[in-house]
């Protein structure tokens, strides 16, 4: 069991969660809760693989996946922003719809054969840094590196730019933002679109780089839900989201590698002597998601965690304070 290999694999598979979490974070910061992440990811994974198979170019697949999931998210935007329907119900429906659509359109795609993957490479110099080099900068997919860039950019955008301030305003106090002349509806549509694009990117990251192929609904296997939970855990902050995503990514691989050694920290390794302990570990990310969602559903706690005040509330011009 080599911690470097576990972390290296964790960063790679955590990138999927990272993209989905940051996308959802943008949507929620604008005040729209979108529980359709899982569905949008599947749409992205399916269209990315499908297009990569037919064109032979994974970059085209990536772009189409982002566009497809982004457009798909606009169903949720229309229903919750224009029609002002319940965001939870619409988001859940989006997951069902996305799963169904991608299974139908992806029929037979699992046999489509192999594709050329997104390129993977090491970064010169940076890969020479002890510990950090092999974990973060050696033989990773280009998408993993994009993840490194995106996290600080998202943080800077939200906290230190003018559009970022508008984003925070429409999620915290849309009526005031409206009075200042910010177009709430248009911006919320845009950030739901951003959430969709990022979920599509997350799905494409699975099917084009991390675990290439199309494996029906098992392609995402509930990772969209973990992303929704991670947003709350990250307290709507991109840096914390990256930390959580990579941790969960590493946990996936740790569960397997920890079964190898007979001794662990100088003690009898329980994961070697009893497979059921590994199964318990495997459950943890999902249990964590349930717990975080339950905690996050209490409004008082959510406020304390720093949730956008208008999250989940449709904005109706001239009718409510929020």
């Amino acid at each position, binding site marked *: 069991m080599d911690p470097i290999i576990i972390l290296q694999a964790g960063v790679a598979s955590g990138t999927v969660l990272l993209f989905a979490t940051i996308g959802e974070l943008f949507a929620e910061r604008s005040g729209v809760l979108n529980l359709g992440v899982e569905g949008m990811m599947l749409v992205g994974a399916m269209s990315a693989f499908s297009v990569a198979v037919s064109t032979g170019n994974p970059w085209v697949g990536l772009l189409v996946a982002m566009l497809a999931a982004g457009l798909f998210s606009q169903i949720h935007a229309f229903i919750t922003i224009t029609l002002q329907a319940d965001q939870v119900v619409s988001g859940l429906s989006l997951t069902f719809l996305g799963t169904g659509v991608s299974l139908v359109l992806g029929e037979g795609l699992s046999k489509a054969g192999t594709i050329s993957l997104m390129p993977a490479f090491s970064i010169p110099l940076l890969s020479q840094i002890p510990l950090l080099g092999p974990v973060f900068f050696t033989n990773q997919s280009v998408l993993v590196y994009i993840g490194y860039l995106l996290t600080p950019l998202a943080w800077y955008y939200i906290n230190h730019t003018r559009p970022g301030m508008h984003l925070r305003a429409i999620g915290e106090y849309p009526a005031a933002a409206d009075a200042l002349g910010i177009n709430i509806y248009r911006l919320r549509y845009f950030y739901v679109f951003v959430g969709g694009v990022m979920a599509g990117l997350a799905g494409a990251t699975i099917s084009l780089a991390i675990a290439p192929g199309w494996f*029906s609904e098992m392609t995402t296997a509930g990772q969209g839900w973990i992303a929704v939970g991670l947003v709350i855990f990250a307290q709507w902050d991109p840096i914390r989201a990256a930390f959580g995503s990579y941790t969960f990514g590493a946990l996936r691989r740790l569960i397997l590698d920890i079964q190898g050694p007979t001794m662990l920290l100088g003690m009898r390794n329980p994961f070697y002597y*009893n497979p059921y302990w590994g199964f318990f570990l*495997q459950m943890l990310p999902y249990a964590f998601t349930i717990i975080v969602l339950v905690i996050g559903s209490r409004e008082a706690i959510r406020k304390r965690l720093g949730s956008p005040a208008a999250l989940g509330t449709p904005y109706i011009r001239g009718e409510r304070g929020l």
Partner: protein
Amino acid sequence: MRVKNVWHVISLLVLFALVLSACGTKPTTPPEEPPAATEAPAATEAPAATEAPAATEAPTEAPVEEVGGFQIPEIEEGKFNVAFVLIGPHDDGGWSQAHYEGLVYVQENVPNVHTAYIENVPEGADSEQIFRSLSRKGFDLIFGTSFGYMDPMEIVASEFPDTTYIHISGYKSNTTNFGNLFGAMESMKYLAGMLAGARAKADGNPKLGYMATFPIPEEIRLGNAIALGMKKTCPECTMDVRWINTWHDPIIEKEAAASLFDAGAQVVFTGADTPAVADVAQEKGKWGVTYDWSGSCKVERCLTAPYWNWGPVYAGIAQGLIDGTYTPGWDYFDADTGGLGLFGFMEGEEPTTGVQDLPPEVIEEVRSLLAQMLAGEFTRFDVFSGPITDNKGNVIVPEGEKFSQPDLDQFPPGAPGLECTYCMYWWADGITAELPSLSQ
């Protein structure tokens, strides 16, 4: 605000419709079917459509019953109706695809039979509803092809005495209409273990890996068979184990394969359904041994594949039930039935590139053992014959003794009346893994 409420209702209705249309699984009938039956109702209903005002909605298909998101296929009157319940997709490239090909074989080789299948059925309570619904439809014979269907099938079998239920891979039977069926895959895994051991030895890295699903007798038995074969050709070899807690999850299977290769394994075996091991072996420049389906061993780095050939077995059972000669019970077939295969060594198959440059005496030994197995001279009991020691040095079976069937598929102490002597709760010499104490 009235307008807004109307929009609410409309949007929810639209969503509801979308979700409903998106959910269900496709109705599943194999393509080999004569199409006449499905077209007949449309033709007879054509005159009625002119009277009815809703002509545009004239049904082109019979309404399909849906249970828990699964569409229950229809039977064909006057035929012997056989249904298959699959754990994964019928084209998973492994376990379920092997069963699906068995279904196609039955359709083509048994006269006057109608076959159908339902795929992606989860084990446990969901499957019970599926088995009950299929029974209500009137299927004569239902195959359940995953371990976890066992208890649901036993329950449903007691409710529908006129339907026969055959469960694959479990250990229960009521000896009237609920039977157990499995085959001696351990024989093929033993041969594959010999090849893998020779391969690892030739590559100078005497380490194997085994991706196991659940700690059940079947998975332990197959792992032990691999290790016994491995030790024959490579006495210094060892084998790592990873438990993945699933039969079918392509991504976890890839991660587990990577975990084994990164821990130093040269050849990795899978106990799960997809050919992920060979794909990862391809990336890592190592070797993978796939499982279940003859078509699963496609990439260059696939060494071999022990596989199932269910067709003749299923056809034999269906024909036996039609003729009244087959009684459900504990049916455990050996290689001489034609139900098992080792990729690269069966008739019409070429050894893979990974096998071709192995020492000729190893290939010769595998060939001659396989010939004995196909002739019925070397069975599963010969694979598990003494002396066998476990990985702690305990003698499991002394020289001159053999395992019996209760030993092969049970943990100690075994079912009442079927107690086992040696039992399947140990890892063979060379396996670097442990099992928790049963008293825990």
